[in-house]
């Protein structure tokens, strides 16, 4: 790819099916909230719940 061509890093998100977009958005929001918190547990449970809620 030419250096001048613009790369759109959000393309994989934009092209995703709706439920995958929802999962991605919610997970990133969750990670953002927790990013600067120390001693946080239960990431897997939270993310598992997000996936369970979106895929039923």
């Amino acid at each position, binding site marked *: 790819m030419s250096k001048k061509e613009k790369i759109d890093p959000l393309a994989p998100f934009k092209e995703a099916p709706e439920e995958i977009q929802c999962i991605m958005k919610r997970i*990133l929001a969750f990670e*953002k909230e927790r990013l*600067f918190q120390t001693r946080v547990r239960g990431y897997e449970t939270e993310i598992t719940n997000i996936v369970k809620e979106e895929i039923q």
Partner: protein
Amino acid sequence: MKLHYLKLKNFRQFYGATPKIAFAKGKKNITVLHANNGSGKTALLNAFIWTMFDSYTPGFQLPEQIVNKRAIREATPGDIVEAWVELKFSHDGSNYVIKRAQEAVCIEDEPGWQNRSTSNATLQKESGSGNWRPIERVDDEIGRVLPKDLHNYFFFDGERIERIVRPSKKQQEEIKAAAKKLLGLEIVARGKSHLDKVRKKFEKDLQDTGDEELTALLKDKEKLENEKQQLASDVEENEVEIEHNQTRKKEIADKLLGHREIKSIQERRQFIEKEKDIKNADIAEYSKNLKQEISKHGYSVFINKLITNFREQVDRMREKGELPSGIKKQFVEDLLEKHKCICGTELIVGHPAHEKVKQWRQQAGLADVEEKALSMGGELKNYEAALGSFPTTLESLKTKIRNAYANITEFESELDDISDKLRKFPKEEIAGLEKQLSACEEKEKTLLFTIADKKARTESIKKKIIEIDKAIGKKQSEEEKQDLLLRRGRACRDAYNRLSTMLTLWDKRFRIDLEQKMQDLFSQMTLTPYLPQITESYGIVLKEAAGGKPLDVAASQGENQILSLAFIGSIIEVVRNQKQQHDTLAGGVDASSYPVVMDSPFGALDHNYRRQIAKILPNIAGQVVTLVTKTQWHGEVENAMMDKIGREYILTYYTPRDDVAEDLLEINGAKYPLIRQSTNGYEYTVIEEL
């Protein structure tokens, strides 16, 4: 982040409480603090870093000694003396005041003081309501404003800044991580990692409930994934080992160069090694061209026979008189329809005249063939032209590759001879060093082979995993639970893959933009024809492209300082642009409003560089705070920055020595003392606004 003021008490050289150092903002966004060496410039820079992050720069000597010595000496044993730094700033619509304090106890024995536990920080926040509230988790909140590992890009010692562009592998990883944080990509990476764990959990649940075949597939996959992870970690270890080995090789080569009797041999070896690298780069370039040539014109080899067939066929038709056809089909059709020939004969169906004209229709049909033959004849000439130059180009590239390999063989043979000569050198130390060098080279070859082998195995495992994933995907479980688990596992994998691609794209885009911006800034700062390039691992190399092919340039200390400033300026600019272009899903740190605090940014630079940097500095960040000596400031820097200065302070150093002449700083015709004699026997520094 916008700085409001900094206030100190008993912090290092600063005895008692200083006045508030308010920082310039808006159009005149530069704050200048004038001081002589040793008067507290580095201490002031570290006051920011210490209070926010409980950290300091490498040039900050005796970091445990925070409390001012005069304050301790004036106390009586058992007294507690406190030092603190208070910083007010705002960020994202909120105001903050952070205060870090350190207590020391005055004791009778040497050194006369002892710190009381570790430093303690308090943070107050006000979010527009006018009510200030204490923040319990200070580090978390400060981390949201500016992550700790990014502070050295915003608060830095100009005399050591060039280290940014000569990063070790570990530091390159840190730059990569810092870039990720600035763009808000760290949370994408974390999300990706957590999603993978959750996907594995769903697959494990499926394993427990699924049928035997599915269970076997999932078990196989788990095994392969573990193997892949082990290989990746092995490769990482091998790469670190190679890096250590290379450092060791460089040390040995330098030592060899230090022996006068073999200096010329060692220099010759370094020359050949460089030449060998150039030839290897040439081979890579020629091979790339060869591939492109084959993919572009390779087909022409196969159409040679078809062209001959086509020509023979057309020639045969010409011999038979079928070409050129000489008559149009439409013309014959019209005659038959009008039932009249051009000679006037009636054309009645079944009569001989009608039959004869009808036969012309058959021949007239070949007019289309003739038209095609003509146009194809033209196209074929182009193909033939391509076919004509293709073998020559191919042969020329192959010859170049052969010649380059032949050169490399010669170089290697000469390198072997040199190595052999040095191994047998009468001086034992030289022979010993050479043997160590050979051992390092052997080790590197083995490691490179091992890495290649492990990477090949990883690729093979990846393919197997894809196959297993496909097989798992095909499995249609009748049970609702299994189906749900399958869909959830697939969703995790899909989201994971998309996040991975996004990270790769972000990284690529960031590097391209960063390099372009850095080249732009660097060219504004320097008169040389050099261009900085950023490698995939965020190493920075300077290239000289004036004579055609870009070659590496050994950057001077001054150029490295400029490169580092350009790098910091580019990071701020690129993050600002990328944030403006799209509000990322993740939402990163808003670097556009960050201040830059620099101690001696003009340290080792000559007049031209100082002038250029002074012009650019006010534009690289929202606020610029610079700590300078008189010699760094006067002249071109002062002239270039004059219009942008919002606030100026002087740090006056009081010395107990009576043999030191007073030193004055002249600003706008007024004189201010940089050094004064202390009247109380203590040394200390006083801050005053100009």
